[in-house]
């Protein structure tokens, strides 16, 4: 009952939090002294990047490791990893698009060969490669195993993206919310709006993941059904 209730509430709560993010971000918070209204992208871009890079790829990596580990190997883990990567493609694309929209007025260019931007784009290509790899293999077990290994290899890129602003002299700014010694850099209504946006986009990820997972289960069931139907038909035709 509780599980069903939480599943039913996930969608409406996500929508309310997203609406709050946009309301606070667009109307309640003040514009920045230097960047003006462009600074409002801070309520979308970091949250979208958090989901695209850490939450979705983290989910895919954990599910892939659990799939490769014999004790926890199951199609459920494979499906979760697949769905998480698919959703991550959307969020990585949104990260690059919102970053680009902010970069044009701030840096003067839509795209810069910056370490963080480049490594994020590489992760996006990795995610697309993952999906291509899945489509190339028909054997479900081989596909799941190879995809799991590929997801783990791709996830190596996530810490590189995270630390890229420290390791290299980049155009992309460093930590925005906290300093290196955990001091908060954003305060008041701006901090609250940022916090709500992180919750909203994280819940949106889980909502999308759940919807995509259900679709995958139905697709697998339909495949099994069509296979059974084809076998029955062949038997009726007298082919043994």
């Amino acid at each position, binding site marked *: 009952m509780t599980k069903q209730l939480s599943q039913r509430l996930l969608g409406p709560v996500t929508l309310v939090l997203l609406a709050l993010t946009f309301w606070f971000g667009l109307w309640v918070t003040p514009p920045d002294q230097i960047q003006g209204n462009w600074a409002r992208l801070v309520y979308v871009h970091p949250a979208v990047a958090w989901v695209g890079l850490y939450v979705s790829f983290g989910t895919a990596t954990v599910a892939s490791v659990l799939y490769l580990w014999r004790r926890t190997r199951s199609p459920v883990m494979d499906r979760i990893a697949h769905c998480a990567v698919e959703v991550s493609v959307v969020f990585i694309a949104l990260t690059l698009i919102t970053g680009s929209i902010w970069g044009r007025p701030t840096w003067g260019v839509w795209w810069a060969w910056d370490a963080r931007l480049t490594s994020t784009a590489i992760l996006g290509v990795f995610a697309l490669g993952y999906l291509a*790899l899945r489509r*190339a293999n028909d054997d479900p077990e081989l596909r799941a195993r190879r995809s799991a290994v*590929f997801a783990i290899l791709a996830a190596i890129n996530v810490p590189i993206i995270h630390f890229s602003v420290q390791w290299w002299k980049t155009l992309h700014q460093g930590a925005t919310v906290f300093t290196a010694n955990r001091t908060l850099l954003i305060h008041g209504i701006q901090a609250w709006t940022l916090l709500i946006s992180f919750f909203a986009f994280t819940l949106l990820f889980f909502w999308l993941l759940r919807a995509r997972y259900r679709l995958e289960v139905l697709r697998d069931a339909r495949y099994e059904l069509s296979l059974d139907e084809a076998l029955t038909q062949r038997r009726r035709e007298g082919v043994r």
Partner: protein
Amino acid sequence: MIRVALLVAAKDLRIERRSRVLLWQVLPFGVMALVLCGLALGPVQAGHSNAAPGLFYLVMLLVALLMINRSRVIEGSPGTRASVATLGLDPAGVFLGKALALTVELWLTGVVLLGGAVLFLHTQLSGTVSALPSVAVTLAALAAAGTLYGVMSGGGQGPATLLPVLSLPAFAPLLIAGERSFSAALHGGALWQWWLISLVALVAYLALGILLYGVLEES
């Protein structure tokens, strides 16, 4: 594991030596690609060696893709997988052997293309020679990563087109590290820092290959 690796590497190199694909197809392709890069830059810019390290590694990536595909096709010939399974060869040894053979092939191509860079893109000979250790390590890392991604792309639909999609994002950091260290050898700068990144990548891919090759080949 080492014995199996040497056996597999010797087998792959012997096949290459007999088929002469490297000599008559891959090397001419690499040299042609380097010449085309010079033509694309134009006579004035091609005279400056600034772009040479990047172009050298770009051509090496294209050559590596051809060689990885070739290395995978050798294993895909009828009966090979069954023979490997029957012999009970250590998958880690098979991975190391294939990576070693690919490394040797890429080194040979690399030496020829470095000569081409001196000739066509006017890189200094002394700087090019001092870049050799970093080139050797970067190409070995490419071979290790390529062997791993090669087996991942095999067996399904369109493996030749799938390989670049899977491997090029992984090759990108190696391209950057290789290009930076080659540039540093030619024009001065932090050669060893970038060389170290290639070395770390080589060790990481070898370790991952030893651990995961068996999982990928398992049927």
